[in-house]
């Protein structure tokens, strides 16, 4: 692989991005997933994201595909759907070989998530089955560390992003990554020559912030600024989950004198291009909704030639939110039209493919489209005979 790349999958109003590095081990980090059953069904028109994902992953010595790391921004169903169907959860001893016709489940060597996995499901914290399964898996992995006081092996390892407000992370220093810190170790590999990951969020509860607001799932979103080095150039990816306006205002306050912490080559438009990442005002209920200047400033630190990706359904000129047409208009002030891409519109609505951005020594480069096989219907990968040796 000549360059590192990031792939944004078309998963409707959900999120799923795979970062694949061009280091020796071709390290993979996936942020969120939304693998809907319709996308697994051959009879449905949804893009088969799981199939594409598998084609990008390496396999271990037993032929089992694996991710080096999976990051969950927050446990809403559109960010975690599909984990039970496609990923192995539990001890690796219990890995089941696939039945005929099934595909092997993907192993996650390392999970990064906030401390909210300890938070039980309730009326105010509704969790889908996949989110509950994810929380169980996090608890299992953290328990192994608690019992052994050693960093567990791959597939049993978890990192907690940010300290738990209730003190549950007090004795877990070795597996807690503080907000504001940076690191370069992925799946126990030191990749400091290739990648640096800065944790911008989740931010702690702000003064005058109501408990009810602070406890919302979106408010707990992980925000990462990932810098990927390529021949002297740093490609900066800002992946913000579903963080909303207050968080962006706070981040601007925190970093306005050091904007390199908010600069990006690629921004995943927060909350599927929601208006509420830019404004407190409701589009439908307010005659003249105003954009928060600080939030807008925080999200405007685009480098030359940057891309903004909306991981959402097609953006129409209506009152839907997310994705919000008004928010898109704001982003189009930041980047030029061809550099604002919507996952369910690329390359065209109704016939979508993942957006692949190569991270070159001159910044991100959109990977062009290849032809599709005109003869076979089944193939989305390489076609043809193996080349013989004569």
């Amino acid at each position, binding site marked *: 692989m000549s360059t590192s790349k990031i792939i944004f999958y078309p998963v409707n109003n959900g999120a799923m991005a795979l970062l694949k590095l061009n280091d020796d081990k071709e390290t993979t980090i996936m942020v969120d997933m939304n693998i809907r059953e319709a996308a697994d069904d051959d009879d449905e028109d949804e893009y088969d994201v799981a199939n594409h994902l598998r084609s990008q992953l390496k396999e271990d010595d037993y032929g089992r595909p694996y991710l080096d790391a999976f990051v969950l921004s927050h446990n809403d169903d559109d960010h975690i759907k599909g984990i039970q169907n496609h990923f192995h959860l539990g001890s690796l001893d219990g890995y089941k070989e696939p039945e005929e016709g099934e595909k092997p489940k993907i192993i996650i060597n390392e999970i990064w998530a906030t401390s909210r996995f300890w938070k039980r499901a309730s009326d105010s914290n509704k969790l889908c089955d996949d989110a509950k399964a994810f929380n169980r898996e996090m608890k299992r992995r953290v328990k192994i560390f608690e019992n052994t006081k050693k960093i567990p092996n791959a597939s049993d390892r978890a990192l907690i992003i940010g300290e738990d407000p209730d003190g549950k992370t007090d004795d877990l220093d070795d597996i807690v990554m503080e907000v504001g810190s940076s690191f370069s170790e992925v799946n126990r590999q030191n990749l400091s020559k290739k990648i640096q990951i800065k944790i911008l969020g989740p931010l702690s509860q702000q003064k005058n912030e109501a408990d009810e607001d602070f406890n919302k799932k979106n408010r707990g979103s992980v925000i990462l600024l990932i810098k990927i080095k390529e021949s002297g150039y740093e490609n900066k990816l800002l992946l913000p989950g579903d963080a909303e306006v207050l968080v962006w205002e706070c981040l601007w306050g925190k970093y306005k004198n050091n904007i390199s912490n908010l600069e990006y080559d690629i921004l995943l438009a927060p909350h599927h291009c929601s208006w509420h990442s830019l404004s407190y005002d409701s589009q439908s209920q307010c005659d003249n909704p105003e954009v928060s200047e600080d939030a807008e400033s925080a999200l405007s630190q685009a480098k030359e030639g940057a891309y903004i990706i909306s991981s959402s359904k097609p953006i129409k000129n209506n009152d839907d939110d997310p994705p919000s047409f008004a928010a898109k208009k704001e982003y189009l002030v930041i980047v030029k039209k061809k550099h604002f891409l919507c996952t369910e519109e690329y390359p065209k609505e109704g016939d979508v493919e993942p957006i692949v951005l190569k991270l070159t020594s001159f910044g991100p480069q959109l990977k062009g489209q*290849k032809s599709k096989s005109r003869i076979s219907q089944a193939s989305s990968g390489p076609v043809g005979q193996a080349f013989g040796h004569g």
Partner: protein
Amino acid sequence: MVDVPYWIFLANRYANEHPAILSVSEIKHLGDEHYTFTAEFRVNLPGKFDIIGQTERGVRKKEPVKFIFPPSFPYKAPFIYLRDDFCRNFAHINPSKEKVTPCIFYGNLNELLQQPKWFDHILDQMADWLEKAAGNNLIDYKQGWEPMRSDELKGEIFYDKGLIDKESEAPPVFYNNFPVFAYVFPVHSKLKEFDSNKHSTILIFKMPIDKISDNYIPNYISKFSDLCEFAEQNHINHFRDRVNRVIKKLKKLFVILVIRRPSRLINSSSCLEALNFGIRIKRNSKTSKIKSNSEVYFLSHRDVCNLELLNRFSGNLKKQRFDWIFQIGCGSLGSKICVHLARNGNNNFVAVDKSKFSPHNNARHSLINRDIRNINKAFLLKHEIDKMGINVRRCSKDVQFLDFSKFPQSIIIDSTANLAVRNYLSRKSIPYPIVHTSLYNHGKLAILLAESSERNPRLDDLIVFIFSECLRNKCLRESLLTEQAVRMSTGQGCGSFTTVVPDSRISLAAAGMSAKIQTYISSGVPENGEVLYGVVGDDDMGIRWNKIKNGKVLVVEPKDSEYEIRVFPKIAEIMDSEAKKHSPNETGGVLVGHISLINKCITISDLILAPEDSIETPNYFELGTSNLLNKIKEIEKKSNTLLTYLGTWHSHPHGGDASNLDKETKKKIKELRNYMPTVCLIWTQNGLLSV
């Protein structure tokens, strides 16, 4: 209106429908059945260049690509040209002085065109190439660094690049006898030898170890000043001064600049790129310094055949465990095995064969020889293998005259199918493990036996394992113990005692055998030896190999006999289990196996349990006779008498050495056997004793 061939029309349609192509021109007829069209590709530039419309090297958002289709399309791919002013400072551009022709596929483009996506494959590759050029990542470090392209090749230079990779870091290295051979292509004549190491001098300069050059530029060097500038840019200091110091009368000089790249080179494990130049030296008559305008020409490198190259191409990358490989028997089977092993890049062979190559040997020998003089087979084999740069010695004498002790750490391959050689190699004094290969039943049965490094089991044990297996395996028995050799006429009054077998069948066996032997050479011989036999299928298309269970044999100290007694592990186990089962009574039975008179060795491979009429008490055992004779006859028949009655064994569950009665019994058995070698064993808790 040109009548466009269907395939050209279809290619044009594919281009029109391709997602990376913005527009396609009309098809033009160029004459001579050649057609062309130009497609304008959309190139996604990296973000910051997207705004200004082109990259720093001038790759544009829209790039025209011209396709010229030969008459043989679609069996041959079209020629592909970029615009003439397209930047040439990229890897993966084919050498050409006039046109810019991208190398879009790591393989044969004609073959790519035969795949189901047909012309789309080429368009995809072209789009991908342009995109990579735009991102300046045409060099895929995982695939490897592409060596410097020269649009004008003046010749080729042949040397072992491995020598350069291994050299110390101190530049320059001055060679008068560096093994190099170079050709320069004259303009209007055939390839002509220009220089060789007899007439030339070569200078090698290496970039300092702490420097790396990751700047890909094609060759632009045509005169001495260019070369000096390039050397300085690559941190090769004092280049001009060093070159000026070469012998004044020298008119031609080869220079190799060794540049360290950020990744290994394509198809190489080394990150050192060797750039090869020839200089036609012109000197300033006053200063005698080399003139700046002295012609410099680029030479492409070709590997010489050597061990490293053979290792690389055969995939045999493990270090050889044995210093020397003896190939005893250089006939049809031995020569094939030896050549396979040599092609794998093994080194230090000793070819041993005293026989001469006769014309009929051409029917199935790995070598071809039309020389009517009877040339020794070992000599011929050495001569051929030598050509690959492999060290081979030869011995044209009987194996008995070989002094193995002069060759440390060896493995000995016996492919003689000669019983005398086999017996000789079974001697204790042979210091190295033997691998035995032979063919039977018109080449339909192949046998491979391997000793362990301590020579237990030994070759003679392994042979008896095969004989013993014949008692139970009808197919093996019928193939191995049936006479097939016939005297074949090789001229009036001449004959060769050999079998009729096609060359292909011998190759089937030799291929598998050499693959197995390669694992021994690379990883060591098996700890417990190995017994394998292969059966060629009825259609002669394949061979199925089977393994016979074996193990280390138990050596029992003989008494009153020169004969060595060797007991198969399974027999020792059966005696142990029978003795314990019948304890506190004594028990026993008949010992069966092979006697080698020449090697003075008795090998016990089988036994017959005590017949029903035997008497078993705590202090006395009497071997019964019920049906015993029939059982022995059956064994002898099935093994062509290679296995036979050897004597008896009985247990002493309460311990104790041989009693007087035991000694008397042995004497009687010996008399009955006409004083042929006889063995009587006693089982005790502490092991086996010989009476």
